Structure formats: C-alpha cells, structure tokens
C-alpha cells in the first residue's frame, strides 16, 4: 500500500491492511495558539469564516504533519443554528452557549433550513475547501454533536442530568429523540460537503453518568443513528469510559476516539475487532505540560497496545506547544 497519510488513515478506519507506519489523526480540535500564529488565523474567525476555518485546520496536516484535517473547533455550530445565543469567544477563549432554549423540556422546534444557517454553512464550506486542498493526501473529518450533547446545550447540562436523577426518564428520552434529526442531518450534510469520515461527539462520559444510564437512555439512539448514516463514523466520548466500552461496541460506530484515562491495552482487549481505536495521548499533563519525550512515550505505548490511529485524546488545550504535537508524528514515523 502507498504510504500517503490518506490511505493509511482510511485503511485503518476499516481495520484494513497496515502500511509502513500507524496513521495519525485527531477528530477533535487541533486549534492552539502556536498553530494560530503559524497559519495567521485566530479565534473567533476560525469559527465564523469558512476559509479561516479551513486554513487553521489545514495547519494540522501541513505544519504538524497529521494525516487528517478537521475544521470544527467548537461544540456550538449546531446549537447556534438552532437559535441558541453563542458567545464565539476570542483567541484565549473557546465559544460557549449563553442561553438554554429548552430548560423546560418543551417541544423542540427544528428550523427546516437549519443546515443553511451561517454556523453550519461555514462548516460545510470549510469541508469543501479542505477536500479541494488535501483530497487524497489527508483524510477530511467532519464533526457533529450527538443528541445527548445537544440536549446538554438545550436544557443546560446540570438540569438535564438532574432529570435523570429524579427519574424523569421520559422527559430525557423525548428530548434526545427530538434532537436525533439534527445530528443525522448534520452528519449527512458533512459527508456531502466533502468529509471522508464524521465524528459524533456525545458526552455520556464516566465523569457524568453511569454505564447503565448510557445503555438505557442513549445506546438505542446511537444504534438508530448509525443505521441512518451511510458513511464511516467515529464516536467521541471523553473522560474515563472503561466501564462502558462494551456498550459503545454495540452502537455501530466504526471507531472510538478515547482518552488516556482509559488504558490503551485494556481498551484494545475489550473492543477487539468491534471498533477501531483512535487516541489517546493525554492533553493536560502530557501534551500541554509534558516534554516531547513524554508525548513520544505515550504515543508508543498506544501503538504497542494496538491502537490503530494515534493522536491527542480530545480537543487540545490552546496553549499546547507545537513541538509536542509534532512528537506524535515522530513517534509514528518509527513504524509499528
């Protein structure tokens, strides 16, 4: 097999033939100050303007050397299109949703043309630009929020979680169900715009809910979601999810993007041939505060454990130094 990053990544996504080295990739944000300086693009432009968005994402491939490009740096593109008030932040601050439209769990009105709202249009256009630039040499990854994370944004995270605690599971199911079409439309539009793969971020993490609640309240919707999506997908749930990996395996995603808190060896053992694993170099201690050598060691640990695609565990901290990101690329250059 040709050793272009695109082929290595796509082959790994299907547990196909292995090339000379493991692919690198990150389905979550690669935005950091060093990369902003190197590309001349900053926040909030990179959330609001398609060419700025594509430019910053491209830096992940051209400057750092990753085999993927992923242009959505926030978690707010869909909720903005649904009408939430989003503060797009600045160079030092990630965007945030200022208002919760459905705190009362009333029926959710999804605008017919929400994919044409500016925040979605920007993302779709950025994907198309990226495809023109790197198609065939790096994989283009799209990103959509799953119905669970969208619910956090609609009801407020704590309010949503409280309803689970109070046993109001009908309310919870209804909200998740109503938001399913948003995720499905977003994912499908991103494929059409040029994404090779789309990541679905849905934070049913061990830091927030029990594995039982994942299985009862979200797994059925994840199964439905993956039935309605034709292209290859990655599930992203950060935090410690060791206790629910076996459930994730049933959901129908091709791959799972995971954190260092989940031991790579254990993950490979549980997931076996049911999903591809992407990750899981630690962000706060290692990529942000560690040395290139620390990064290298974690990347090699993941490779040795059998993780197929190597990259950061989640959206990287804004102050992450470029040399640490490049250490991931150096680690895969040594091959298997």
């Amino acid at each position, binding site marked *: 097999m040709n050793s272009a990053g695109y082929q290595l990544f796509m082959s790994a996504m299907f547990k196909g033939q292995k090339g000379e080295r493991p692919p690198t990739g990150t389905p979550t944000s690669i935005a950091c100050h060093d990369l902003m300086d190197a590309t001349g693009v900053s926040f909030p432009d990179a959330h609001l303007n398609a060419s700025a968005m594509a430019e910053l994402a491209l830096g992940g491939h051209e400057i750092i050397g990753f085999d993927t490009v992923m242009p959505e740096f926030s978690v707010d593109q869909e909720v903005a299109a649904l009408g939430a008030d989003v503060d797009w932040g600045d160079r*030092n*601050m990630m965007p*945030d949703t200022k208002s919760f439209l459905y705190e009362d769990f009333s029926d959710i009105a999804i605008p017919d043309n929400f994919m044409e709202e500016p925040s979605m249009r920007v993302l779709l256009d950025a994907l198309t630009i990226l495809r023109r630039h790197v198609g065939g040499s790096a994989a283009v990854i799209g990103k959509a929020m799953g119905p669970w994370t969208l619910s956090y944004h609609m009801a407020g*995270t*704590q309010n949503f*979680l*409280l*309803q*689970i*605690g*109070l*046993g109001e599971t009908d309310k919870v199911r209804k909200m998740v169900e109503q938001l399913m079409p948003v995720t499905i439309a977003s994912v499908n539009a991103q494929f059409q715009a040029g994404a090779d793969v789309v990541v679905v971020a849905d934070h049913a993490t*061990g*830091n*927030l*809910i*029990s594995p039982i*609640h994942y299985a009862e309240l979200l797994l059925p919707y994840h199964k439905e979601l993956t039935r309605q999506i034709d292209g290859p997908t990655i599930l992203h749930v950060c935090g410690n999810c060791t*206790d629910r990996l076996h459930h994730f395996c049933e959901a129908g995603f091709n791959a799972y993007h995971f954190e260092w808190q989940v031991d790579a060896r254990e993950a490979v053992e549980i997931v076996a041939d049911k999903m591809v694993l992407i990750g899981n170099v630690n*962000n*706060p201690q290692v990529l*942000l505060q560690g040395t290139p050598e620390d990064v290298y060691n974690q990347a090699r640990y993941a490779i040795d454990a059998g993780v197929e695609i190597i990259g950061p565990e989640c959206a990287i*901290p*804004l*102050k992450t130094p470029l040399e640490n990101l490049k250490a991931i690329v150096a680690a895969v250059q040594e091959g298997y």
Partner: protein
Amino acid sequence: MSQHINKIQQAIVVGHHKEIEALVQSALDDEIAPELIVNAAMIPGMDAVGQKFSTGEIFVPEMLASAVTMNKGLDLLKPILQQGNSETKGTIIVCTVKGDLHDIGKNLVVMMLEGAGFEVIDMGVDINVENLIDKVKEIKPDVLGLSALLTTTLPEMAKVIESLKAHRVRDQVKVMIGGAPVDEAFSEKIGADAYGKDAAEAVQIARQLIAG
C-alpha cells in the same frame, strides 16, 4: 426516634425527593429536634452520598437528586432553625474562576458543604479577581473554594492567591482548590492551602482548615 432518622437519611441517600417532606414533617410532629434531624440524618446522609460518588457507585444525576432531596427537607427546617439561631460550622465562599463556565463540580461542592452545615456563599461562574477580593473583604469567610475545569483558566487560581496577598488578606482566609485538571502539585506550586479531589473531600478539607 432512630426510625425517623434512618428514614430521612435513607431518603437523602437514594434521592427520594417526593417523600422527604412528609418524612421530615412526621419527625417534627414526633418532636424530634430539628438540629438532630440535620446533624444525625441529613449530614451523615450527604456524607454517605459523597462517599458513594467518590467510589464510583453513583454518578452526577444521583448526586444532584440527593442534593435536591436534602434541600427540600432543609427548607422545612430552616424557619425553625433560624429562630433558635443554631450555630454554623463556618463560612465558605465558592466560585468558578474567570473565563470558566463549568459549574457542575462546583455546585456539587456547594451542596455537600451546605449539607455538612457550613454557611456557603456561591458566587457562581466566571468570577473575576477584583469581585472576588471585594467579596472576601466584605464577608471575611473562613475558607475560599476555587474551581476550574479548563487548563486555560488554571492560572486564574494563582492570580487570586497573588491578589489576596497584594490586598493583605491572604492570612485571613484559607484557600482550597479543585476541578479535574487541578492536582496536589499544582496546589502547592501556587501556594493554596489544600487541594480536594471531589466534593466529599471538599467537606473534609473545609472541616480541617477551619479546625486549624
């Protein structure tokens, strides 16, 4: 009597928010002292909840439900307790630092501290240093609790401590810090008095810091 105490404690542990009021009322009807309900049923109940959360037996939704249950029960007792001016265990200001909007962890800390009988002033999220210092000067709390969930907002904690020093109030208040990216080493580095890994630990630390 221990019947009532057990039932109230149990209702808090499992978050039976619909039953708590009736249970507390029936305890009051049987002339059980409100102080006793708080100290023998509610506080140990929330302590047990904190322990279960620490060990991963329960998660955030269950803990929130317990806190709601506790608060409903407390609402019945507050008017009676205030008449008898029952003493508080100390005053604590808690907030999430500037630039950071994560508040679930902070709220759990507040709920547990309240559950443990402290007077808690919750300033909310995204609190800038100046406002915080003003509040500290005004309230003179025993403890200041700071929460941060973002690596980008961690430096704010150091700023708060520096500013407490600059305003010459650092020695009047103990500072405890927490949040997922915080650890013991960071706490020592910036000169905080203590780091707590979760809401149950926040209570223990506050008790220790106030005891001196």
